[in-house]
């Protein structure tokens, strides 16, 4: 469903508030199907906010955006898809070690994608965000 919306109904992202509303639907679905994962997402947000100079905002395509000052570190969609900006070199290392996947849309960019499906993924997500945060400092 997420991929259908992102790839086939991509034009809807231009409709004001559409992405935020779609992300809320993902949140409600997660609340009904796997509420413990919402707790993990809060955990990630609290962890990032505990680092100096960070803040959160709403991501323009839906989800929670993590920032260092005005620079984006990454963003978490409410289906558990975490997108992180790590730069091309780190990206190659992460892809080679199997710790992340190419970004679900911008495959040639310095972004990576990472699905948070288990509690183990939560630890890896925090490590990846910390790495991206340190590179932005």
């Amino acid at each position, binding site marked *: 469903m997420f991929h259908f919306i992102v790839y086939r109904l991509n034009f809807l992202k231009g409709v004001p*508030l559409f992405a*935020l*509303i779609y*992300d*809320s*639907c993902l*949140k*409600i679905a997660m*609340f009904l199907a796997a*509420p413990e994962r*919402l*707790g993990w*997402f*809060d955990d990630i947000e609290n962890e990032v906010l505990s680092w100096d100079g960070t*803040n*959160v*905002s*709403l991501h323009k395509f839906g989800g929670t955006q993590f920032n260092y000052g005005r620079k984006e570190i990454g963003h978490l969609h409410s289906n558990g898809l975490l997108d992180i900006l790590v730069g091309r070199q780190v990206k190659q290392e992460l892809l080679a070690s199997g710790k992340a996947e190419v970004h679900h849309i911008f495959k040639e960019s310095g972004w990576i994608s990472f699905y948070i499906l288990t509690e183990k993924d939560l630890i890896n997500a925090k490590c990846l965000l910390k790495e991206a945060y340190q590179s932005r400092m």
Partner: protein
Amino acid sequence: MKAVVNRKILGFLVPNFLIIGIIGVNRFVLQAESGGILVFSEFIILPILMGILAAWYWRDLKLNSKKLIWYSILNGFFAIILSFLFLGEGTICLIIVSPLIFAFVTTGAFIGKVMFKKNKQTLNISFVSLLFAVFVIDSISDHHYENMVSDEVIIRARPEKIWKNVVAFDRIKKPNNYWLFRIGMPSPMQTTVSGYKNGAARKCIFSNGYTFDEKVITYEENKNLTFDIINQPKDPEIMGHIDIDRGQFLLHDNGDGTTTLIGNSWYKLHVFPTWYYDLWAESITRNVHLRVMEHIKALSEE
């Protein structure tokens, strides 16, 4: 502790009564002449504002995502109950509207959570004012939407045999298959007619006893029966939401002993956004058509 409880309760009370009050004034005072059209921003902008306002009351409670979603769903549920009590909305209508309310109240709550975390009051007030301005402009704008739904069935009989069943038919005894009819939405049961001619009075009787009064405007035997709906029941599920204007049955002899029966309905919708409500209006109209046409088919093929 007491202050925390008060803030939590205010997050439910204030947004609900404020929004219901705004919808009530808009519907019964400002738009009374147009029959109380429900504009798109009443289902989108106001629930978002409701979520933002609730988030303002809950801003110091440090609610986690699970609680914020749960409270938002509760807030939406209270809004639905208040609409039932104070705005006279029907149960089926409220079931139809509920996905929009839950999604938009939750969206507003999460927008509010981030807004009030940043504490940029000028930006916050500008954003809320912009949403409110959209609501006002939408409320005073003209809204008009008409649609026609068409369905057809093939009947193994000649038009001459089918025609009398098209003009009027006895009680439909077949159980309903459509889920909205099964949970209580009235379905068509019987049709009576005062005469087999132009200008005859026709009545379409629904399962709850409500009657649509119709007047035959085209009576071309074995070909075309068109009627205007001159009076529709004062049912809260229909009133102020949809006007069924006209109905039509066309019969085409296929020349092989079968006939194509086409059912057409024209209606005006008074609830917006139509991209959402017309999906429901089309689906309901289609299932009214099919229930009647399947019955005509069964009677004609006996």
